[in-house]
């Protein structure tokens, strides 16, 4: 029995379901009469089964965890988005306040420390919540200044 038939090349696309309907129907009829093409189709199906069953391993859970750890952001971020925004705002306010203090000017020429600084040197700081606490102090001071305006 010859393994070669002029239609053998089409069996690959037939196996993948990539032939137009008319060509598929034509080849269906041919395969039923051609042992070489029927054998070719059976071999391609066996190859597909082998590759599906043994062609690659499942992703280990540890690999998935490593992947997440190496990507920007975290799956369940411990720092709320608002705290991050306030931290950025707090950093900007600190820079402005620092420049203001350095210049020696103040709204009323007073030597009085801003409330956030008084609080900062008297309170215990929890390192885990530091960004949020700083953000809170800045916010409170901003609110106080707003009330005093």
């Amino acid at each position, binding site marked *: 029995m010859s393994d070669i038939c002029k239609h053998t*090349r089409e069996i*690959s*696309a037939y196996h*993948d379901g*990539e032939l137009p309907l008319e060509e598929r129907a034509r080849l269906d009829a041919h395969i039923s009469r051609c042992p070489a093409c029927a*054998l070719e189709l*059976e*071999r*391609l199906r*066996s*190859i*597909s089964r*082998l*590759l*599906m069953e*043994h*062609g*690659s*391993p*499942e*992703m*280990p859970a540890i*690999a*998935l965890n*490593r*992947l*997440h750890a*190496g*990507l*920007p*952001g*975290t*799956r*369940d*971020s411990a720092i709320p*988005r608002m705290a991050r925004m306030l931290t950025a705002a707090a950093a900007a306010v600190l820079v402005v306040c620092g420049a203001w203090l350095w210049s020696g000017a103040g709204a009323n020429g007073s030597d009085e420390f801003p409330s956030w600084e008084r609080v900062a040197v008297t309170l215990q700081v929890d390192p885990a919540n530091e960004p949020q606490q700083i953000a809170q102090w800045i916010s409170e001071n901003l609110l106080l200044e707003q009330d005093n305006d």
Partner: protein
Amino acid sequence: MGAKHLQPTDSDLIRRATGGDDAAFHELVDRHAPQLYRLAFSLVGNAADADDVLQETFAGAFRQLKKFEGRAAFRTWLSQILVRQAARCHRSRGRARMVSLDTLSGAARELLKNGTVPPAGRESDLRLDVLTVLDTLSPDHREVVVLRELHGMSYDEMADVLRVPRGTVESRLFRARQELKDRLKDYLP
């Protein structure tokens, strides 16, 4: 029976991720990474390189997410990035690497020596033999076989991912299968 919880679509998650919701991007990773890992492993042949390729793929996707236009499926887009990363991995590490014969199964050594693989006696050897045969294909042939057989892509999707004409996909796949038939002939009818 309660209402079925609807999973967000890829489009929903992409919209949220581009808006700054990192958790949405990580949900996309959970959804697509397992299948892409299998694709990466099949393309590069080992877990360490597969990890690296996958990391680069998702890091690149994160950076370019705003450029994703939605013309193709998100998975297809990710596969495009992954295939390019795998090709880069091949170029940087060299395909003509020295492989210690001691690390190969007897069947793998037989393949290297004679070009055929005798039937494996155990399931674990069979997996190693199939992986070895995949590994000996040229990168072009390995890509089309892996994308078709392990990823279930259509010819048009593969043409998109590989950026070649559909006819090229079809002919590469035909030639790759002739190679596989020859190297796995003892497993086939």
